[in-house]
């Protein structure tokens, strides 16, 4: 008798799932799965993407026409949970994925999506390994190598340093990827690197790393890292009266939005980022206001802007390729791959086109932090 019950339950479950699937196909709205860490240590990045995507979807839906429904799932920055989250949103009827936010889960999910033919556009997973060998995986953010190469070029072109110290997170693909390419490009350009120090996600004490750069006489410290550890490094350097030029990349964006942060610590920090929440550009100002409404008062960082651009880029490609709420994920995938070959999109993070191997072409902007705001570098 028990056995029969189990079979009945199973059949009912199958019927329900099939029912859900067919209901989704009949729906008019375009369904995008948004996957990222909304809880846990990396929640700051996942939530920024979620809210950024939400702002884009709200704007599009307010205009009328083809509507968007976002299906958001948490992956806690864990590869296995991310694949589960992917399966969940696909079961709910997602036709394409905005995500995943972080690199390691993105590599795992894109492998599955490649097999199942689902199109993915990640706002922020910047490792070169993410799109490698997968024709359905595209990025909105810069690839890590590009960031490292740009940085070395700017330092060399402007004679910013004679001796360079580097502090990077060797437990993080993003940081390591930028570091390796920065180092290679620096050698090519004849820049001298005098100290290279590492830390990991759990490091709270940066005295050793900063002392090493100071003792080596570095007049510029390159920080290819996120802003949370960067804020500790800046405070540590100040406590030992060490004031080199600090040069950060897009992960540095957001440092001024930290509650309670002493902005004078970041004065004269140079950073390379495609997005600045301080820009007076009309589009950005509008985005910042809407983002604050959605997120409950946070200032958006580049993750949020990249996710916003990702939703719009996908939406534009869907319109151009005639994809609507009833297109199957497989068909949408082939159409989107074709569309991204020719798509030109002007977004918050710059003017973008894509290469066939999934990388974005856009230009980063260099900014200098002055009095708690960004000033374009060189002005």
């Amino acid at each position, binding site marked *: 008798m028990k056995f029969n019950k189990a079979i009945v339950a199973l059949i009912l479950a199958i019927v329900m799932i099939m029912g859900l699937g067919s209901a989704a196909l009949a729906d008019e709205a375009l369904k995008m799965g948004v996957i990222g860490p909304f*809880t*846990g*240590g990396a*929640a*700051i990045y996942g*939530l920024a993407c979620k809210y950024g995507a939400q702002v884009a979807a709200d704007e599009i839906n307010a205009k009328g026409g083809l509507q968007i429904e976002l299906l958001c799932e948490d992956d806690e920055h864990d590869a296995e949970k991310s694949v589960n989250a992917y399966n969940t949103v696909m079961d709910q009827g997602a036709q394409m994925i905005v995500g995943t936010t972080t690199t390691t889960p993105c590599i795992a999910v894109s492998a599955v999506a490649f097999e199942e033919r689902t199109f993915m556009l990640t706002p922020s997973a910047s490792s070169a390994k993410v799109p490698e060998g997968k024709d359905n995986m595209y990025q909105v953010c810069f690839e890590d190598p590009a960031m490292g190469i740009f940085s070395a070029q700017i330092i060399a072109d402007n004679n910013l340093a004679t001796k360079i110290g580097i502090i990077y997170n*060797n437990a993080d693909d993003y940081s390591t990827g930028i570091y390796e390419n920065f180092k290679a490009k620096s050698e090519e350009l004849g820049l001298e690197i005098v100290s290279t*120090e*590492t*830390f*990991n996600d*759990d*490091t*709270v*004490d940066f*005295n*050793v*790393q900063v*002392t*090493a750069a100071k*003792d080596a006489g570095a007049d510029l410290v390159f920080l290819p890292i996120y802003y*949370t550890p960067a*804020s*500790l490094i800046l*405070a540590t350097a100040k*406590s*030992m*009266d060490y004031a080199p030029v600090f040069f950060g990349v897009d992960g540095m964006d957001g440092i001024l*939005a*930290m*509650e*309670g*942060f*002493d902005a004078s610590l970041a004065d004269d920090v140079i950073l390379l980022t495609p997005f600045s929440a301080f820009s007076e550009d009309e589009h950005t100002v509008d985005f910042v206001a809407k983002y604050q409404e959605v997120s*409950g008062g*946070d200032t958006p960082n580049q993750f949020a802007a990249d996710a916003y651009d990702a939703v719009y880029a996908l939406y534009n490609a869907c319109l151009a390729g005639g994809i609507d709420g009833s297109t199957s994920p497989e068909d949408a995938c082939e159409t989107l791959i074709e569309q991204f070959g020719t798509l030109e999109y002007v977004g918050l993070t710059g003017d973008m086109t894509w290469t066939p191997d999934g990388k974005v072409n856009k230009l980063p902007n260099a900014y200098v932090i002055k009095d708690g705001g960004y000033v374009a570098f060189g002005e």
Partner: protein
Amino acid sequence: MVSFLRFLINGISLGSVYAIIALGYTMVYGIAKMLNFAHGDIIMVGAYIAFCAMAYLSLPPMLALLCAMAVCTVLGIVIEGLAYRPLRQATKLAVLITAIGVSYLLQNTALLIWSSNPKVFPTLFDLGSIRLFDGNLVITSQSIITIAANIVIMLALTLFTGRTKMGKAMRAVSEDKGAAELMGINVNRTISVTFAIGSALAAIAGVLLCSTYPTLQPTTGAMPGIKAFTAAVFGGIGSIPGAMIGGLLLGVIEILGKAYISTELGDAIVFAVLIIVLLFKPAGLLGKPMREKV
């Protein structure tokens, strides 16, 4: 030489924070015989309470610290009463899993309340710094206060457990819960008090940790918590001076290892030393060897 001194002071200061956290671990373990893995997260809650008291209510640092201690004390008692007390007779494994559950609960509740955006903790008690050797050696007042607080707390705890009635009750419960109960000691109350003291210490540790390393996010307590647990085991879990020595050694080894061997291997060195110590002294540096009665 100057840089060695700088690293040493740095290590002692970091070690003092570990030591204060380890004191909480060791008290609870010594008396309730359980590993309270949520201890690291109580540190985080303490730091957030102090941050809110200063940033939103503009309270002076000392008052903010007292607020944090009060909230954490209540939190500690509530957690013990709701989550651990019903499991008093359960297996150790069940209590351990519950503690991990409480840890996740605290972290994610903090995420909901204070969001994942890191907050920058203000510098407390900034009395300037001492500059020696032509400014090559800078000792911040933070480091001095942390080290001093550590010593005061350890002495106070030693006196408390040695001289007061409650302290004696704690030692009795630690030695034999059943016999202590037969002697008329209220075991539940004693364990509650232990949690209260441990959590108040966690609040102090949180404030000191965050005023030295000023970023505060819901995961702030996790890694220092684990390091401090290591320190407690290192020194001999259950022993108050052991926790202090373990914490200090751990901090110094970590910093010197990073400075003179490799920043990449810093943590590996710390844990390698722990393994070596435990191979030769399985009960830790100051721990009493335990005899299993058959």
